[in-house]
């Protein structure tokens, strides 16, 4: 008997020991090991971020302090690239002017247009998804080469616009190849691609509680008054978001100008966007170091604009909570 008891006690203690071992096995994994599957699933993104975004960005920062023509290894040039940008580059200034004009013209126009269309679509019409898709279509096509070529056809000397004007006895200029007008055709192209801010505005409009409008209409407020007193203030977060995103996009605009001017930025550099100038320096004249410096200046300019937007936002953006 005693033996039996001992045995069972031994078995029991063995069982306890093994259970204790089991619990230590479960406690052992470090945070890393526990999260390994998560990181594994994140790997594609990590590889993309470090290999295709952060790595090249750091290399470009290094190259911006060098002379590099692709065929020979880069040679260190100190601040030469940056000081040329700051003090000795007329094209930097003129391309910056073109880009700023484009940003200042196209962003407010595009947002206004997007908001107007969103208001129209928000009136509970039938077949809304169809209209929404149709109005969004230009944004999908917008930065494509085909659309830029279409734009050439429309604003050409004997293009669609001038044929229409001709019906009224007006002989229009060749809009895209006249330095006084060419940039406006690009602004119109940008405004036409109002789809993505429109979708966001539409979502924002849906968020505004209808009881506010009901209360206002009981008080006898007009539609216009309701728009300015209810819709607009409650939409400011969305306007702010769209404004920041569209401004950044406009600074980075490249394809339309590249295709419409065949990469020259002509006539007379009137469509020489900053990004196009950067591209010419890099791939036209193989001044990779200088182009890298130009790219970093653009990063700083966009960052400043965005920071400015965020700082001023507290005075006009209205958050519910």
């Amino acid at each position, binding site marked *: 008997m005693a033996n039996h008891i001992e045995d069972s006690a031994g078995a029991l203690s063995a069982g306890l020991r093994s259970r204790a071992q089991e619990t230590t096995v479960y406690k052992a994994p470090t945070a890393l090991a526990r999260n390994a599957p998560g990181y594994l699933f994140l790997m594609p993104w990590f590889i993309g971020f470090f290999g295709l975004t952060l790595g090249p960005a750091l290399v470009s920062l290094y190259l911006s302090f060098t002379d590099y023509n692709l065929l020979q290894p880069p040679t260190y040039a100190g601040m030469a690239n940056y000081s040329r940008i700051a003090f000795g580059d007329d094209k930097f200034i003129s391309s910056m002017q073109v880009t700023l004009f484009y940003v200042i013209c196209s962003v407010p126009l595009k947002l206004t247009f997007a908001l107007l269309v969103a208001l129209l679509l928000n009136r509970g019409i039938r077949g809304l998804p169809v209209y929404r898709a149709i109005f969004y279509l230009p944004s999908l096509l917008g930065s494509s080469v085909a659309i830029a070529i279409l734009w050439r056809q429309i604003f050409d000397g004997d293009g669609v616009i001038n044929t229409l004007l001709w019906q009224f006895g007006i002989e229009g200029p060749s809009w895209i190849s006249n330095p006084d007008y060419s940039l406006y055709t690009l602004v119109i192209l940008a405004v036409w691609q109002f789809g993505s801010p429109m979708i966001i505005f539409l979502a924002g409009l849906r968020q505004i509680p209808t009881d506010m409008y009901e209360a206002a209409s009981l008080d006898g407020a007009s539609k216009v008054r309701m728009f300015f007193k209810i819709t607009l203030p409650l939409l400011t977060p969305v306007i702010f978001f769209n404004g920041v995103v569209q401004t950044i996009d406009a600074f980075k605009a490249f394809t339309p100008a590249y295709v419409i001017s065949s990469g020259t930025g002509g006539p007379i550099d009137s469509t020489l966007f900053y990004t196009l100038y950067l591209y010419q320096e890099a791939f036209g004249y*193989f001044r990779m170091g200088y182009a890298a410096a130009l790219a970093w200046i653009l990063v700083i300019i966009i960052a400043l604009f965005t920071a400015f937007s965020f700082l001023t936002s507290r005075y006009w953006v209205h958050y519910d909570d």
Partner: protein
Amino acid sequence: MTLTINRRAVLMSMAATLALGTVGLNRAKAATSMRFLWWGSKERNDRTFAAIKQYSDKQTDVAIAGESFGWDNYWTRLATQTAGGNSPDLIQMDYRYIFEYARRGTLLDFSPFMGKALDIADFGAANIDSGKVDGKLYGVNLGVNSSMMVFNTDAWKEAGIEAPKDDMTWEQFGAACSKLTATKKRRAFYGCQDASGLEPALENWLRQKGKALYTEDGKVAFEAADIAAWFEFWAGLREAKACVPPDVQALDQLTIETSMVGLGKAAASFAHSNQFIGFQAINKEKLDITSYPRVAADAKPGHYLKPSMLVSVSATSPNKDAAVAFVNFLVQNPDAAKTLGVERGVPASEKIRAAMAPTLDDNSRKIVDYIARLTPKVGALPPPPPNGAGENSFLLKKVAEEVAFGKSSAKEGAAKFVEQAAANIKRG
């Protein structure tokens, strides 16, 4: 209805992909495979792909993949591929760029192959030397050309005005053009393009006056007064409506398709003689070639013969012998010559010229005849342009547009051009 993807479908498609992959690998392994990169129009692509096919039909173990780009994108592509250690084996090369690539050690020296795998002795010294850099041969001449004026014979006939011909003066040419515009046979149609921003036209004009674009040591060889006179001459033509207005000329992106003759905006344009094939290919009306007008009857020759393009082999190519053999095929095989025609210029080889003479069509014959009658009248090949010269050709276009649109005077424009051109050269 929803699309369901089950495990079996995924596995099967993976297996299929793998199987297809091995098919591709086997094909690639069976042959010496090389890449050939060139720039050019659709016409050139068709002819070049046909010549490649001729070659691989005979040399079944050699596969050549051709890639073609427009002139602008071509140099970007080549530079990035070369920098990335992924240079194509066979490279179409230009006289402007060969020095840069050769001196950086990216091209193969053909000298050891001369007289063996590469048999181009019948090119003549001048046509061999135009592919040499520092005494070594890095490029094989793919065709000889010169600049030309291309004109629409139908338009001139319709206007009842004698078409441009060799050796007329610039004044005569301008007068004929303004007469053609004045007949108003077509809506918004002019005598000629506005060539004030076209570098080869300026170069031809400078050479006629005994000057040049660049000196032997790579400096600017013209003065502000020369450029001002050039801009003023074209301002006169614009005033007389001999040439197209500036907003029409600005459509010209220096391609055949956007040239004034190509767009049907004018009866005459300036281009390179080998491009005549491309011009005629996109034009329903009959075109013809003549030389540039001259500043005076006793002017110095403005024209020169140059390699319209060269072919080079990458210094890092693993298939150097196969690549050189293909180069030799391109320039010395009568069948290849027949396929390629004179679209890249008139072949430098005397033997090939004689072999293809009876088979030439009308358009090709026009080019060959033009080069033949120009040859006794040409001057020497100018020295290779310095670094920064490529930027200057765009600078000329921009400044000429400023003058044409009335944003600056001819004198101001000329002073600006000379100053910035020198700065671009200095920057390299």
